[in-house]
């Protein structure tokens, strides 16, 4: 185990460099303004920070509430070992979203206006409220790790007492939040491409988040397992891999059924080049994983499961880019490709999260913990 840890520094150095570059770009953004550092324009008011950091970031944080639901609500105790890392990842994911918004907003110093001026008809209002409250809930959900480490028994007891209501609140907020990102796009019936625009966008967003949640957990726990030098629990990986095709199956039916009902299914064959993007997200992120995860042999190897999960994650990222950026029409006369500062900022924020996760594994009891609420999990270890 020691040796594997010694290998890490190279990765750490790269992450640190990326994080510092990101930090420098953020400074530039505050000094020179959005127009100077980004390629956004009147024709493309939302760029990569919204498409990647907000849209993908929130969806990839879905591992938190899906795992919490599996473990604490549906009684899937064997997944207990991944619950805490998943909640931490979700928490970091949401912090990143907030940080990215602080970069992306034109007047970030007025972000608190979202709390005092309410337009309850705005889907973005719902998003803002959910981001704020859910980040707080996630912090509470993760806090036992901190309290355990510090041996603060009183707060630990309090948190344990409200654990289940907290988890349920987290699930409700996530449900609203994941779907409300879809609701936001409902406002663009004239500019979002008809392959993607549908009144059921919020439902599609929700189901794709449900599917990507377990995939992110598989993906992430494999990577941390590799770099921390502990073997990934096969039972957990296989179990999660078994859940995914069911959710993706529902998602696929919704996607195709919706296109058929709206009479737009033909577009995925005829409307070049948009249809290529549709097939990319569906083949990579939905159809292929459904097939692979349904094969028993495939589920036998952790490595294959890892790659299957990676496909789901990739497909989701393509989907979110499709709806929030690529297939959202620009005003005539404009073009957009993210600038270096935009990319460096997004990458830098991502590196920050990786660093914090790495640190958390070093500092907090992440995998073997909480004897009191799950004795079975311990027995399995």
């Amino acid at each position, binding site marked *: 185990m020691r040796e594997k840890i010694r290998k890490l520094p190279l990765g750490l150095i790269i992450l640190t460099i990326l994080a510092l570059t990101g930090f420098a770009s953020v400074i530039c953004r505050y000094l020179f*303004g959005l127009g100077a550092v980004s390629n956004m324009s009147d024709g493309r008011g939302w760029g990569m920070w919204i498409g990647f950091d907000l849209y993908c970031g929130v969806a990839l944080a879905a591992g938190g509430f899906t795992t919490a639901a599996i473990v604490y*609500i549906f009684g899937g105790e064997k997944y207990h070992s991944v619950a805490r890392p998943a909640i931490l990842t979700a928490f970091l994911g949401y912090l990143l979203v907030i940080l990215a918004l602080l970069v992306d907003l*034109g007047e970030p110093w007025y972000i608190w206006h*979202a709390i005092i001026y309410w337009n309850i008809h705005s889907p*973005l209002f719902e998003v803002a409220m959910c981001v704020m409250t859910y980040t707080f809930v996630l912090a509470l959900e993760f806090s036992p790790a901190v309290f355990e480490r510090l041996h603060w028994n009183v707060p630990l007891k309090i948190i344990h007492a409200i654990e289940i209501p907290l988890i349920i609140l987290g699930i409700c907020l996530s449900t609203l939040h994941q779907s409300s990102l879809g*609701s936001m796009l409902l406002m663009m019936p004239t500019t979002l491409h008809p392959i993607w625009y549908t009144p059921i966008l919020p439902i599609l967003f929700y189901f794709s988040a449900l599917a990507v949640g377990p995939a992110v957990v598989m993906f992430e726990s494999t990577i941390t397992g590799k770099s921390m030098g502990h073997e990934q629990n096969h039972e957990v990986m296989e179990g999660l891999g078994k859940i995914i095709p069911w959710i993706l199956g529902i998602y696929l039916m919704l996607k195709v059924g919706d296109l058929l009902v709206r009479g737009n299914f033909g577009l995925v064959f005829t409307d070049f080049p948009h249809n290529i993007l549709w097939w990319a997200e569906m083949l990579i992120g939905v159809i292929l994983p459904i097939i692979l995860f349904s094969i028993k042999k495939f589920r036998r190897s952790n490595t294959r499961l890892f790659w299957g999960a990676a496909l789901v994650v990739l497909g989701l990222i393509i989907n979110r880019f499709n709806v929030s950026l690529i297939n959202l029409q620009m005003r005539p006369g404009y073009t957009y490709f993210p600038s270096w500062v935009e990319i460096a900022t997004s990458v830098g924020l991502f590196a920050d999260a990786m660093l914090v996760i790495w640190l958390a594994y070093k500092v907090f009891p992440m995998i073997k913990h909480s004897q009191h609420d799950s004795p079975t999990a311990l027995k399995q270890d």
Partner: protein
Amino acid sequence: MEIDRRSFLKLSAASIAGAAVLVSPTPALASSGNESQANTNGKGMLVDTTKCVGCRACVVACKQWNHNPSSPVDDESKTHNDTPLLDSKTFTNIRATDVQQGLEPKWVYTKIQCMHCQKPGCAEACLVGALKKTETGPVTYNESKCIGCRYCMVACPFGIPTYQWESVTPWIRKCTFCANRQAQGLQPACSGTCPTGALKFANRSELIDEAKQRIADEPQLYINHIYGETEVGGTSWLYLASVPFEKLGLPNVQTEPVVVNAERAMGLVPPVLLGMAALMTGTYLVTKRRKKLQAKTSKKDEQGAKTK
């Protein structure tokens, strides 16, 4: 705003009061707030493109009134291309379109600015309510609320709101329908200066009647369509033209307001919240009970094994 917040508080109070109050809060939410926006009797502007000669006096008047400096999009030589026509210093502009008839070039000039929708996507999108449809017609912007999320820019079906990208403290900019002039009983700067009568400022409903009259009087000149009468649920600005409006760069949009689907989704939030909470609590209780039963039976088994 106040009413909105109060109804929301009531709603959330009701939600907290328990699952029993699932008496569809949806219609209440959907109908509150936006009533005034459906008011069709505010002020309007009729743009008769057959009368416009492209002199751009309105563009200059607009810049003067709003203290806007000149900017690259003013370059007249480019206004017939697919180049941007508006920016944060240009709230209105003239698009020149060659709708060649026979061998002769025929130029049509179309004034572009915020349409002041009856059900504006921008106002519905703005999470802090910085953009508002006023009873009298204008869709106004309140800088002191805006946080710069730019959702309004993306949500506008006509691609109107612009941003002060060059600034470190940027704000949204768009035509205000000269709300501040209207408040003083003046007409907007652009129509006040138009020398040909291509712009006419009056009550929206009167303008629709007048537009219908003009079409009836000269059916060979106009196409039989008032752009803005029903587009995205109607707009305060109305257009007449001799050629189809897409040719003039006015997008062919649906008659349903752009906010309809989003409004429905937002109305579903309280029931979804309650339903999910109930579902999860129920599932948790069932799982817990099942586990207890399991534990009991396994204990019994153990004891049974021991006694044997």
